[in-house]
């Protein structure tokens, strides 16, 4: 498969280090000048970018930026350019009280499209393809991120967005879709539905499935490939950092190439914050090297992975990250949305003024993930009139859906029936994996 920007993606490691250093220095000079949050943070550790960043390793002196920091900067506090230079704004799912808002300059969008084009190319997409984007459009980065990259390649883009599975399948048939961009679980939902509709996937034109958005297992990759007759590649994005385009797998299917000329990546021990030796598993920390509107310095992604140093047979010199199998914090990823279990409690508490005892349960039905919230009935959360009781459940569902952006089932359960550990209820139970 052709490499989108061979002169950049196959650059020598020495030159890459120099490029990273140059871009990092420019980035730090800019955030120090333009973002009071970073200026304050840098001063706290007595770090002056112009004097103290002689080597890439000097970055380790700087504190981390967390999703909470971003949340607290709501909405524009951490922007590094005036709003008039910002041409796009995205916002992440509301895992914190405030959503995390990110901005893009014209040049940021340009880079973003190029990076996604690189990743789609690596996954097999060319200008002759018809790509169906089943990620959500709107404030989340998934849909538009993939969309612009696919347009950059010159593929024909079908912005079908999420849901309406039968319509997706009809479009896939009639428009002769060759590439599907989706979450791994949605790829299987499509496969299941086609089986039900008695459509033979062989009659489709599908060749590639570009997946992202949730943890998956190798068996799942195999199942998708076998049932849909596609080649599956994984890619990785973080909306605070850019969205899709941070890393993507090539057709060797041996880990995702980090776009290292635009992102500096470290692996740290999530407990101590120390940078770990090469190839060890830990939390991925990313620093943007070219972002203008919303630079991120040492952002803790919360995702656990390893960085593979070994050169890839595809010829790209960028190192690869292993697939994300789990997170190192209590964030729950379901349907591509990040949820912090405690925040659900906050929402429920707002309703009646008291925090109910509750548990978040992720279940998988067929290949579809479902979010369930089990709430123990107490006096506040109980009414002997059925109608009021139903209304309460409806209100809870609505509040939660509004807050996290996906719908959840709310179940009222008997007092004391939720599974307890050392006397307290586990906030999250994952019943998705066998």
């Amino acid at each position: 498969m052709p490499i989108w920007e061979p002169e950049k993606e196959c650059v020598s490691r020495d030159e890459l280090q120099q490029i990273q250093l140059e871009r990092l220095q420019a980035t730090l000079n800019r955030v120090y000048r333009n973002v009071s949050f970073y200026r304050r943070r840098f001063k706290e550790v007595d770090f002056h970018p112009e004097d103290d960043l002689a080597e890439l390793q000097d970055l380790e002196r700087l504190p981390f930026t967390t999703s909470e920091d971003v949340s607290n900067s709501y909405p524009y506090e951490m922007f590094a350019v005036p709003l008039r230079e910002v041409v796009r704004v995205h916002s992440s799912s509301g895992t914190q009280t405030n959503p995390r808002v990110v901005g893009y300059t014209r040049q940021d969008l340009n880079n973003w499209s190029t990076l996604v084009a690189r990743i789609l190319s690596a996954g097999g997409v060319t200008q002759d393809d018809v790509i169906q984007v089943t990620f959500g459009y709107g404030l989340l980065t998934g849909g538009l991120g993939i969309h612009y990259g696919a347009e950059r390649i010159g593929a024909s883009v079908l912005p079908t967005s999420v849901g309406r599975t039968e319509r997706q399948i009809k479009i896939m048939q009639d428009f002769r879709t060759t590439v599907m961009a989706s979450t791994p679980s949605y790829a299987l939902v499509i496969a299941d539905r086609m089986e039900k509709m008695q459509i033979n996937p062989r009659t489709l034109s599908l060749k590639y499935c570009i997946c992202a958005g949730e943890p998956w297992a190798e068996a799942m990759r195999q199942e998708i490939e076998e049932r849909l007759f596609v080649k599956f590649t994984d890619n990785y994005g973080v909306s605070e950092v850019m969205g899709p385009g941070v890393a993507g797998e090539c057709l060797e299917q041996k880990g995702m190439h980090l776009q290292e000329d635009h992102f500096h990546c470290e692996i740290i021990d999530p407990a101590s914050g120390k940078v770990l030796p090469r190839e060890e598993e830990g939390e991925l920390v990313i620093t943007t090297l070219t972002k203008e509107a919303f630079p991120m310095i040492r952002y803790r992604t919360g995702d656990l992975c390893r960085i593979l140093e070994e050169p890839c047979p595809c010829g790209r010199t960028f190192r690869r990250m292993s697939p994300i199998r789990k997170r190192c914090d209590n964030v729950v990823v379901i349907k591509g949305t990040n949820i912090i279990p405690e925040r659900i409690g906050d929402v429920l508490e707002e309703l009646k003024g008291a925090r109910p005892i509750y548990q978040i349960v992720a279940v998988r039905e067929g290949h579809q993930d479902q979010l369930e919230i089990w709430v123990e009935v107490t006096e506040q959360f109980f009414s002997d009139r059925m109608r009021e009781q139903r209304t309460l459940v409806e209100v809870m569902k609505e509040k939660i859906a509004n807050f996290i952006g996906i719908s959840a089932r709310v179940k009222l359960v008997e007092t004391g029936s939720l599974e307890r550990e050392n006397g307290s209820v586990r906030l999250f139970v994952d019943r998705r994996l066998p």
Partner: protein
Amino acid sequence: MLTVKSVHTYYGNIHALKGVSLHVGKGELVTLIGANGAGKSTLVNTICGLIQPRKGMIEFQGKPIQSLPPESIVPMGMALVPEGRQIFATLTVESNLQMGGYIHRRKRDQIQEDMARMLDRFPILNQRRQQLAGTLSGGEQQMLAISRALMARPQLLVLDEPSMGLAPLVTKEIFKIIHELREEGRTILLIEQNARAALNIADRGYVLETGKVVLQGEGTMLLEHSEVQRAYLGKGAKEIVDA
């Protein structure tokens, strides 16, 4: 070809370059733009060995040169077209060219051959080969300065403000020459105040501000960049006045 890493240069107590890094790859035309006093010429002087950096590393053709004097750097394959041209005004055009080939002085044939090529390339210099260089016009002097530098057969050509003091039409001519040199596969570092002209022909560029690099990227990208346009290309000035 050339790698500058976190270089700090001082004039006495004045901190002129504050951790500047840049690189020029083989066959690239890289430009460095910035306002007066941003540190552009300091960087050139530091690269060429006229001033020594207090901290940082400069690597040319894989060897560290940050503590070498100019006379050791030139034979390694770097030639400078200095700011203000600095031609030998009291020598003839021919002698100026010969001086440019000084490091190859034992190879008489090569010098003759190169000189013929330069005079062929710039017919105006050929016409004036016996004239004293000081009698040439600004544009002609600049052509002479460039040819003189090329006489050293450099691997890297460093041009410091070649458009300075030249009429717009002449500037255009000089940039055409620089562009041609790039097309011939030469490696060039171009330092310029004329941001638009420089970015137009450059593969990549760096924007220097108060001794620091604040922007870098491909030439066309910088040309379109709103910050560059406002600060160096005079765009948007009207809006600001109106507002």
